[in-house]
């Protein structure tokens, strides 16, 4: 439910309740990062490469790799609970179809609500479904990282390049205390 506020110009503005993100650490140094492979082609390779980049550039201490049983629907709550306990932060990839991008965003929002800072990676073609799923799940404006579409079918060196290219954006989603997703 939104609330009405009066701004200095005398206008009233409806402000939606902002989704509360999980607390962000100041850096990734020494942290355990969960990598959730959503099962799409190259998603596992992508999140593993991203984990390596995060270790090389940002000092991530260790990674925990898990795979969703079905990419196109929400991850089982037991899997998200396990990741929440096994890792301090989570990266989810890759939302490179309509249903799997929506599901990836839904998983990211669910992990945030469990208290785990999470960065979701989708391909650029699926911003519409990703954004809309955030609204459906009560987190309008939820931010996620994007890479060029498609991910499926890419050779290993290009998957690595995608991981290198998006790493900074992923980190900004995980550690920037100023980042706040939700207000729409």
């Amino acid at each position, binding site marked *: 439910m939104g609330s009405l506020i009066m701004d200095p110009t005398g206008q009233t503005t409806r402000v939606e309740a902002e989704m509360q993100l999980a607390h962000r650490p100041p850096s990734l140094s020494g942290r355990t990062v969960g990598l959730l492979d959503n099962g799409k082609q190259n998603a596992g390779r992508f999140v593993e490469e991203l984990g390596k980049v995060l270790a090389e550039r940002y000092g991530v201490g260790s990674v925990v790799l898990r795979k969703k049983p079905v*990419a*196109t629907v929400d991850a089982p709550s037991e899997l998200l609970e396990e990741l929440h306990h096994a890792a301090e932060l989570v990266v989810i990839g890759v939302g490179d*179809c*309509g*249903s*799997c*991008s*929506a599901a990836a965003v839904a998983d990211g929002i669910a992990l945030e609500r469990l208290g785990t800072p999470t960065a979701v990676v989708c*391909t650029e*073609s*699926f*911003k*519409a*479904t990703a*954004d*809309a*799923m955030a*609204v*459906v799940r009560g987190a309008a404006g939820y931010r996620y990282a994007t890479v060029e*579409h*498609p991910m499926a079918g890419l050779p290993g060196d290009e998957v690595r390049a995608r991981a290198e290219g998006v790493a900074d954006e992923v980190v900004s989603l995980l550690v920037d205390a100023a980042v706040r997703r939700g207000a729409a």
Partner: protein
Amino acid sequence: MIDLEGLASIRTSLEADGYEIEVTDGDRVAVVISATPEACAECLVPASVMVPILEHTLKVPGDRIDLTYPTDHEASDHEASDHEE
């Protein structure tokens, strides 16, 4: 009046999965999503999820949207075949 930028955005997403979208804007908003031969069956969200997606992207209330899905077409095709037999 639907949001044309939103329509372009959802069209981009659907086309990447091998689907086409046609929208007729009037008293109600008729949305027909159809599959091309290259369509990825599991990539399309269920119709129950697509309606709020369309509501958000087209910026029209969901209760004004009449959505026709590829499965609806298939059902119609089957019905037609049944009648022909």
